[in-house]
């Protein structure tokens, strides 16, 4: 579904991503892993078109996207939940959810979103900024789902969130992937969470992709070499 080939990205003169190749199969759930600062978020942003790339190909559902603007990538079916949630704090929960509806032509917020996150229905008219961290994360995921994406990209969805909500978010991601057939690519630092939710892993080290495989293949050696701090 998503193929990244030979991706190079720079911030100024700093070379951040080095010839990155990544394959995300349709219907799969892939976890992008690696220590802090290895380029995971930059790779997701590059896929989403939020940072410029110097060279390489990004192909999604047979369409070359490397030069397409971010809003076009969202339009063709890529949903993105940024790190740190980045909800619109002054907008109400409902308004946050309504933004993505434009491209689907729907007038109402899909009931599925409230089914997955009932709290969003209760808080519908409250401002996004008034929500707790966990609720904001649910809103950020709900907001991306309003686009009715085929591929959902999540950047550390459990960062700084209370354990009960982490579990809930894990269940939602599994349901979206298994029940709704949504392809998922997520960045996650929590190993147990990643093992529970994802079926594939890709590990990054210093801007390069160094290991990929099915989740059971993520053994202690790989963890020690690339993930342990």
């Amino acid at each position, binding site marked *: 579904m998503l193929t990244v080939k030979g991706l190079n990205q720079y911030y100024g003169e700093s070379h951040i991503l080095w010839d990155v190749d990544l394959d995300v199969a349709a219907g799969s759930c892939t976890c992008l892993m690696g220590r802090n600062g290895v380029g995971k978020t930059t790779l997701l942003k590059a896929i989403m078109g*939020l940072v410029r790339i110097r060279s390489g190909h990004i192909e999604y559902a047979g369409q070359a996207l490397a030069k397409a603007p971010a*809003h076009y990538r969202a339009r063709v079916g890529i949903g993105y939940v940024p790190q740190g949630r980045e909800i619109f704090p002054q907008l109400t929960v409902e308004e946050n959810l309504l*933004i993505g509806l434009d491209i689907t032509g729907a007038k109402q917020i899909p009931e599925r979103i409230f089914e997955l996150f009932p709290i969003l229905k209760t808080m519908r008219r409250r401002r996004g900024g008034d929500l707790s961290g966990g609720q904001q994360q649910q809103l950020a995921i709900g907001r991306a789902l*309003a*686009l009715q994406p085929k591929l959902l990209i999540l950047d550390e969805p459990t960062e700084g969130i209370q354990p009960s909500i982490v579990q809930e978010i894990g269940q939602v991601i599994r349901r979206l992937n298994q029940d709704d057939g949504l392809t998922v690519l997520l960045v996650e630092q929590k190993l147990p969470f990643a093992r529970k939710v994802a079926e594939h892993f890709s590990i990054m080290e210093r801007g390069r992709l160094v290991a990929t495989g099915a989740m059971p293949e993520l053994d202690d050696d790989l963890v020690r070499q690339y993930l342990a701090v």
Partner: protein
Amino acid sequence: MTPTMLRFAGLLGMVFLLVFPLLYTGSNYSFIMHLWITAFFYAILASSWALLAGYAGQFSFCHMAFMAIGGYTTGLFNNYLYFSNTPTTTCTEFAIGDRWLVVLDPIGVAASPRTCLDAAHSAWAEAGIAGEVLIGQPSLWFGIGLGVIMGGVFGLLIGALVLRLRTVYLALFTVGFSEILRAVISAEIAVTRGQAGLELSPLFPDGITLFGTYFAATHKLPPYYLMLGLFLLCLAIMGLLVRSRFGLFIRALREDEDAAQALAVNTVRYKILVFVITSMMAAAAGAVQAHYVGIITPNILIILQMSLVIAMAVIGGLESIVAAAIGAIVIQFALELLRTSFDIGPWTIDMSVWRLVFFGLLLMLTLRFFRNGLIFSLILKVERDAVAKETVSKRQAAAEPKEID
């Protein structure tokens, strides 16, 4: 107070504005009407600036420049363009069908300038054909329309140029543009008459009959309704826009441009659009005001004028076009009515100077204690109370045990 009562108060206010000129009979009728017309002018500027800065987060300092573009476009149109059925041979002219579009040479600042058209008149008189020559000016409404279009064109240009600029860089860029425009108008004395100002014909040069009564060109009632109509039209357009997807998208891009893009919002398009729309409104206000006042000078572009519009919007409430408009009207009246000096013992307080001090203090206090502005804070409180009530009642309803049949 409930949101419904607020809406009712708004409706009452609108009715008041519509009937005021018909019911008011004070001896200072012309003065009060002038205050209202100027207040509507500032209300259009403050509310459209609130849409640009408050909703879309584009803190532009060249809103008055767009206003001036509207005013000067119609001013130049009004001073330079004529139609004639006979070629002048002295002016620049273009044949359009059996008529000639005559463009005057620069008119300069002489008290009674002798234009190329005057020279043509002399020549026609000498040739004995003066009686056959028909000279006319295109309707000033075309000039006003052209002013609005020019405002939009410059809005598009500036909007495209500042796409990548945020906060202080955007502010400095737009101050720069405004100052360049002021310098050009001031320097091109031959064309714009510089500081001497460009004179314009009144809005209704031959007077107008309204409600079965004839009003002379200098009467304040027709321009009152024209400016009020323009104000309400701008408010209606902005009201529709902010309630639509457009409003949602520009608020989203104000808060987080990347996140908005990731939700399929074409931020480039909406940023430029908001510049074009608000510039056209400012230009429309400027064009009508220029004809109403009868003269336009580059002094309307000084930074103090722009600060006044910003202060009006800030004191009213930046995130509400209605609050910004009310802020502008209140401030405009307060500034004029506070002009009366008074004595405290042996000291005379010269209010023509001190009123600006009070105004500055009010601005500082608003910024410190009411970040949402004085008017919008009130509106917001009423709306938030209603939402809080609704949430509490929902929670209580959910907590109450349900009866089992």
